[in-house]
């Protein structure tokens, strides 16, 4: 029982972590906030399901194709919409409002395209459970956890070892110096939005088989991920993962040992307490001005 709970908590925690990491990435790169992250997850889930269930593509192909499309969508939003708004002198709050509008449009668009019912995402594996060290575990949970951890590691390596990833960190810290060195700063911002949306969309595909696919699925996950990102220290990628894991564990164990009706009450109660006592989050982050 405990092992299953821990795996479940890690799984949902890595979902929050990955989506939350996207908030941090966007904030670091552009000093802005996108409130459409949760809906990126939802759109990803719908796209993945469509490719897998209706077009009959292999799961891995569906996943990668979805991630590619989501990357382009995220970059499009930054390059076309956000940049245009900022060029016209829009305040940050209008950009945030713009992302809320995008969130609504995505939800409504999904409803028009796929309907308002919960859709079933067919299971990826033939067996219902796998036996690991004597514990019965749902393989889709392991898949989601595995993809989550893989994405985090891949992103970490990309940001620290690749030239482009390093240039993204450099540009986030000092745009002027980065430009003078020949770094295309607008492109790094677009990439950050693209990666944020790609990660959320990808994780949407792997949790589709676990939770089903529906238009409002991203809303709650998006909020928890946001909360995790704040608890971890907004703008810190690693903090977002820890914060997300924290929420995953709190809600899983509260549901299991108390009652699931209280899980959000307790999770968000903790969020407020953390904000009061540690206003910079667990990991203090030097954010850009």
């Amino acid at each position, binding site marked *: 029982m405990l092992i299953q709970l821990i795996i479940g908590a890690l799984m949902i925690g890595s979902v929050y972590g990955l989506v939350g990491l996207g908030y941090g990435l966007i904030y670091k790169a552009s000093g802005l906030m996108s409130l459409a992250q949760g809906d990126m997850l939802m759109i990803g889930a719908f796209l993945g399901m469509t490719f897998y269930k209706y077009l009959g593509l292999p799961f891995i192909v569906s996943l990668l194709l979805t991630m590619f499309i989501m990357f382009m969508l995220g970059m499009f939003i930054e390059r076309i919409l956000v940049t245009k708004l900022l060029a016209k002198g829009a305040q940050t709050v209008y950009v945030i409002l713009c992302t809320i509008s995008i969130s609504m449009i995505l939800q409504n668009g999904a409803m028009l395209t796929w309907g308002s019912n919960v859709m079933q995402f067919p299971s990826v594996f033939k067996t219902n459970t796998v036996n690991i060290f004597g514990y019965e575990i749902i393989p889709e949970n392991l898949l989601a956890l595995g993809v989550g951890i893989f994405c985090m590691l891949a992103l970490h390596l990309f940001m620290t070892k690749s030239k482009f990833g390093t240039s993204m960190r450099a540009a986030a810290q*000092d745009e002027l110096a980065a430009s003078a060195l*020949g770094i295309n700063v607008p492109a790094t911002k677009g990439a950050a939005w693209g990666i944020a949306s790609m990660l959320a969309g990808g994780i949407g595909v792997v949790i589709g088989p676990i939770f089903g696919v529906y238009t409002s699925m991203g809303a709650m996950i998006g909020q928890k991920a946001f909360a995790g990102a704040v608890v971890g220290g907004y703008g810190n990628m690693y903090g977002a993962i820890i914060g997300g894991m924290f929420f995953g564990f709190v809600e899983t164990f509260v549901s299991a040992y108390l009652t699931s009706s209280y899980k959000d009450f307790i999770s968000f109660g903790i969020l407020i307490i953390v904000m009061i006592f540690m206003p910079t989050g667990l990991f203090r982050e030097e954010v850009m001005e």
Partner: protein
Amino acid sequence: MTKLLEVKDLNFHYGEIHALKGISLDVYEGEIVTLIGGNGAGKTTTLRSISGLIGNITSGEIRFMGERIDGLKPHKIASLGIAQCLEGRHIFGNLTVRENLDMGSYLRKDSKVKEDLDYVYNLFPRLLEREKQRAGTLSGGEQQMLAVGRALMQRPKLIMMDEPSLGLAPIIIQGIFEIIKQINKDGTPVLLVEQNSHAALQIADRGYVIETGEIVLKDSAQNLMRNEKIKDSYLGAS
């Protein structure tokens, strides 16, 4: 000697403020040219408009190796071979020393990057010692070395330096000017902006004096040092 950089009748506005009023200056191959002037005279604005870092100029022309570069995006201008050490150093504090230098060679795909890294570490052995350290933990002088080293990693055809001596101890300033001379001897032309006019004129071939957005004087560095007006306004009692 071939003309590398040519600025002709450059005007620049910050909103309503007419910051540069018809600046003209040239840099030839092999030279150290200095632009001296007081606080707020327009030195930094001149360098930043050459690099395209502050948006479009109002009027005038900037040419690099004969080609117009005004209006280009900053990363394009950098890719043509113009490096700039910004005023206040602007190193990436959260990146390591090595990562900062790697960002200098960001655009390069040639095989000489390693050679240049050795060159920079040879100029500044301190940076090699601190290669893996976060750049934010360096002292002011070391950060200035890193800013210069990072610009050198671009293997620029022209290096522009904005107040490299700012906020540094005299002994370190001396070292920085030695390095600038060395860099120039090794083949890179330098456009140097300084408030420390004395030190700048000592290493420069030619100089321009800028006052409230206008070039009021241009001459060889030697003549400028002997000029009574310059002595009074910029060189102190010396």
